[in-house]
C-alpha cells in the first residue's frame, strides 16, 4: 500500500522530469500523453491505496513511511516522510482524479500552442506538488509541497510570458503566497522549539496550557491557509490568476492550490481546536470572503473572473465549515466543488476556445444556441454551484450551513452570512449563464460561429485573447474535439451524482471515513439540517429568479447604484488599499533611503575617503622629485642616522 502511495506521489514528478529531459526529442502530443498518463497512473495508485486502506479497521488506518532522514540536529529529525490516512487518501483521490481530467482536457485545449511540452511538464509538476502537500508526513515536507504549489502556479499563470498582464499576475500570486509561506514557517519554528518534532501526528497535539504558543502557531498556519486559499485579506491574487490558460485556472481552482488551505486547517484541526479564537477567526474570514466575493462576482464581465470569484466564495464556505469544526462537511464541499468548478471552467474554456479566446461575457452573449452540449453541461455546473437538489452542491453546501447552526450564536451569525451567500451565488451564477448561454447571439458570436460555415478553415479559431500570438490554423467541427468534450462530460456526470455519497441525516460514509482523522465538533440535528437545506435552496432559487427577471425575461431593469457599482468593480478597493498601504510607502521609503542614506551617507563617505586618499597621494607625490641623487642622499643620510642611533644606544 505504501508502495502505491509512493507511486501516486512520484509518477507526475517522473513525467515532468521525463518531458523536460527529452526536450524537443518528442512530439508535443507525446508530451501531453506522458503527462496525462502519469496523472492517470497516480489516480490508479490512489484508488489502490484507498481500497487497501478501507479494508483495514478504522482505528488502524494511518501509515507512514520514511525513505530518507535528510536533516538531523540533535534529537530533531526530519525525513522524507509520507503519511497515508483517510484524509490524505481522500485528497489524493480528488487531486489526481480531477487533475487527470483537467490534464486530459488540456490536450485538446492547448493543441497547437508553441510551448505545449513546457506546459505539460508544468502541469505534471503542479499535480506532483499538490500530492506532496497532501501526502506530507511532517510539516517540512508539507511546506515543501506548499512552496512547490506556489512555484508551479507562478509558472503556469505566467505561462504566456509574452503578455505583461500574465507576468504581473504570476508575480502577484507568488508574492501573496510567499506571505503565507513565511507565517507558516514561523509557526513551524515555534513548533520545533516547543515540540522538537514536526512529524504527523505528534506535532499536531500541542498539550493544553500553552495558550500564547498555540495561538501563535494557529495564526501562522491560518496565514498560510488564507494566502493559499485566496481568502480575505490575501485574496487579490486569485482573480488576476485568470491570465493563465483556462485548464490552469481549472486546476488551481478545482483540484489543487486553493483547496490546500482547507486541507491544512482540517489536517491541523487539533492545533486549531486548542486555539478556539483563531479557529473562529478562520470561520469569520471564510464568511466575509464568501459575501465579498459573491458581491464582486455580480459586476464582473470576464467569464473566467466570475467563476474565479465564485471559487473564492465557495472556499469561503469551506473555511466557514472547517473553522466551525465541521471538517468532514468542509472536505465534502471541497470534493463536490472540485467537480462542478472544474466543469464550469472547462465548459467556459470550450466557449473561449471556440471564440478565439474572447472572455468578455458581453461579446460572448447568446452563444448557447450554437453550442447546445456546452450549454447543458454549463447549466449542470451552475445548478450544482447554486445548490439545487439533487445536484452535488446541494448536499455539501447545506451541510456546512446546518453545521454552523449547531455552533452557538457565532455559528448562527455566520450561517446567516452563508445564507445570504447562497442568494448571491444564485444571482451571479444565473446572470452568467443567462447572459452567455441564452438570448440572441451577439454579432461577435455570429461572426465567429456562423461565419465559419461559409469560409470554412480560413480563420484560426484557436487561441487565446492575444491576437499577436502565432497559432496554427486549426478549425474543428462541432463544439470541440474529443479531448475537450470527454472530460467535460465526465465532470458533468460527477457534478450530478457526486453529492449523493453523503446525505447527512440518512447516510454519511464520508463523515465516517474522516471521523478517525478529524472528528467533527458540531453535529447538527435533523431539524437543523432540514431548515438549512430548505432555506439555502429557497434563497438560491430566489437569486435565480431575480437574475431571470433581470437578464432572462428582462422584466426588471437592472438597478444601477453608481457608488455600489464602482465599489464592486474596484473589488472593494483591496488592490488600491494595498497599493496605498504597502506599495506606495515602500517606494517612498526606498526613494528616501536612496536619496539620504545611499546618496549622502554611503556615497558621501566613499567620496570623502577617495578624496582623502587622493590628497594624501598628491602630498606624498611631492616627495618624489625624480632626482636620483636626492634619493641617494636620503638613503645615505638615513643610514648615517641609524648608525649613529645604534652606536649611541650601545
Amino acid at each position: 500500500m505504501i508502495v502505491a502511495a509512493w507511486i501516486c506521489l512520484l509518477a507526475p514528478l517522473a513525467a515532468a522530469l521525463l518531458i523536460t529531459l527529452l526536450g524537443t526529442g518528442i512530439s508535443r502530443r507525446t508530451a501531453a500523453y506522458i503527462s496525462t498518463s502519469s496523472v492517470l497512473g497516480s489516480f490508479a495508485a490512489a484508488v489502490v491505496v484507498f481500497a487497501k486502506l478501507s479494508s483495514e479497521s478504522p482505528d488502524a488506518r494511518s501509515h507512514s513511511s520514511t525513505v530518507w532522514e535528510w536533516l538531523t540536529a540533535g534529537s530533531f529529525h526530519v525525513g522524507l516522510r509520507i503519511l497515508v490516512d483517510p484524509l490524505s487518501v481522500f485528497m489524493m483521490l480528488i487531486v489526481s482524479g480531477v487533475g487527470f481530467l483537467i490534464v486530459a482536457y488540456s490536450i485538446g485545449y492547448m493543441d497547437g500552442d508553441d510551448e505545449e511540452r513546457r506546459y505539460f511538464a508544468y502541469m505534471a509538476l503542479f499535480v506532483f506538488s499538490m500530492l506532496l502537500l497532501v501526502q506530507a508526513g511532517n510539516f517540512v515536507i508539507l511546506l515543501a509541497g506548499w512552496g512547490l504549489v506556489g512555484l508551479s502556479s507562478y509558472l503556469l499563470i505566467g505561462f504566456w510570458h509574452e503578455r505583461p498582464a500574465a507576468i504581473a499576475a504570476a508575480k502577484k500570486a507568488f508574492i501573496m503566497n510567499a506571505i503565507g509561506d513565511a507565517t507558516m514557517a514561523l509557526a513551524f519554528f515555534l513548533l520545533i522549539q516547543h515540540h522538537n518534532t514536526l512529524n504527523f501526528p505528534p506535532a499536531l497535539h500541542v498539550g493544553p496550557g500553552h495558550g500564547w504558543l498555540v495561538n501563535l502557531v494557529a495564526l501562522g498556519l491560518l496565514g498560510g491557509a488564507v494566502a493559499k486559499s485566496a481568502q480575505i485579506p490575501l485574496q487579490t491574487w486569485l482573480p488576476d490568476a485568470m491570465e493563465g490558460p483556462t485548464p490552469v485556472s481549472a486546476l488551481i481552482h478545482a483540484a489543487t492550490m486553493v483547496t490546500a488551505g482547507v486541507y491544512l486547517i482540517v489536517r491541523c484541526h487539533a492545533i486549531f481546536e486548542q486555539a478556539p479564537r483563531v479557529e473562529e477567526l478562520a470561520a469569520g474570514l471564510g464568511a466575509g470572503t464568501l459575501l465579498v466575493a459573491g458581491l464582486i462576482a455580480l459586476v464582473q464581465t470576464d467569464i473566467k473572473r466570475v467563476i474565479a470569484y465564485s471559487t473564492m466564495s465557495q472556499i469561503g464556505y469551506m473555511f466557514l465549515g472547517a473553522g466551525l469544526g465541521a471538517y468532514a462537511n468542509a472536505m465534502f464541499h471541497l470534493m463536490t466543488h472540485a467537480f462542478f468548478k472544474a466543469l464550469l471552467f472547462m465548459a467556459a474554456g470550450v466557449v473561449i476556445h471556440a471564440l478565439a479566446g474572447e472572455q468578455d461575457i458581453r461579446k460572448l452573449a447568446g452563444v448557447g444556441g450554437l453550442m447546445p452540449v456546452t450549454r447543458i453541461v454549463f447549466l449542470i455546473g451552475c445548478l450544482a454551484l447554486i445548490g439545487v437538489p439533487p445536484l452535488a452542491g446541494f448536499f455539501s453546501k447545506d451541510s456546512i450551513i446546518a453545521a454552523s447552526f449547531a455552533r452557538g450564536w457565532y455559528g448562527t451569525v455566520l450561517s446567516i452570512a452563508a445564507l445570504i451567500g447562497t442568494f448571491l451565488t444564485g444571482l451571479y451564477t444565473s446572470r452568467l449563464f443567462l447572459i452567455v448561454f441564452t438570448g440572441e447571439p451577439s454579432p461577435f458570436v455570429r461572426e465567429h460561429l456562423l461565419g465559419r460555415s461559409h469560409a470554412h478553415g480560413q480563420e484560426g479559431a484557436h487561441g487565446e485573447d492575444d491576437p499577436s500570438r502565432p497559432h496554427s490554423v486549426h478549425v474543428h467541427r462541432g463544439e470541440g474535439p474529443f479531448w475537450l468534450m470527454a472530460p467535460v462530460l465526465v465532470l458533468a456526470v460527477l457534478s450530478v451524482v457526486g453529492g449523493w455519497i453523503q446525505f447527512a441525516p440518512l447516510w454519511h460514509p464520508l463523515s465516517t471515513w474522516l471521523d478517525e482523522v478529524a472528528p467533527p465538533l458540531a453535529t447538527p440535528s435533523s431539524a437543523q439540517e432540514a431548515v438549512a437545506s430548505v432555506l439555502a435552496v429557497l434563497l438560491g432559487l430566489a437569486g435565480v429568479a431575480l437574475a431571470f427577471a433581470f437578464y432572462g425575461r428582462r422584466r426588471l431593469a437592472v438597478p444601477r447604484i453608481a457608488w455600489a457599482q464602482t465599489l464592486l468593480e474596484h473589488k472593494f478597493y483591496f488592490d488600491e488599499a494595498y497599493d496605498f498601504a504597502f506599495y506606495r510607502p515602500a517606494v517612498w521609503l526606498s526613494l528616501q533611503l536612496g536619496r539620504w542614506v545611499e546618496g549622502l551617507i554611503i556615497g558621501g563617505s566613499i567620496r570623502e575617503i577617495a578624496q582623502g586618499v587622493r590628497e594624501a597621494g598628491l602630498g606624498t607625490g611631492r616627495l618624489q622629485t625624480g632626482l636620483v641623487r636626492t634619493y641617494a642622499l636620503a638613503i645615505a643620510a638615513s643610514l648615517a642616522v641609524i648608525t649613529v642611533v645604534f652606536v649611541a644606544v650601545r
Partner: protein
Amino acid sequence: MKGPEIVWYLAVAASLFATGALGVLLRRSLLIVLLSLEIMLNGANLALIAFSRLHGESSGQIFALAVMAVAASEVVVGLGLIVAIARKRLDLDVDKLSFLRG
C-alpha cells in the same frame, strides 16, 4: 697571520666605500654614478674578505663572490639603460633624467 693589521684593510675599504658614495651623491654623469656604485660594492667586498681572513672562515669570500655576481648583473642592466638613453639622444645627466617626478 702575516701582513698588516685588520684596521688597515678596513680603512682602505672605508675609503673606497666613501669615495664611491661621494661619487654617487655628487657626480651627475650616469656612467660615473654607475662606476661609483661599483667602487662602493668593491669596498664592501674588501671588508668582507678582510674579516674572512681574520677569522679564518671562507664564508666571507663566498659572500664576496655573490656580491660580484650581483654587481655584474646590475652593471649589465645599468649599462643597458644607459645605452638605451643614449640612443634616444637624451642627456646622460642624472639631474635631467627626472621623469619619475611625483
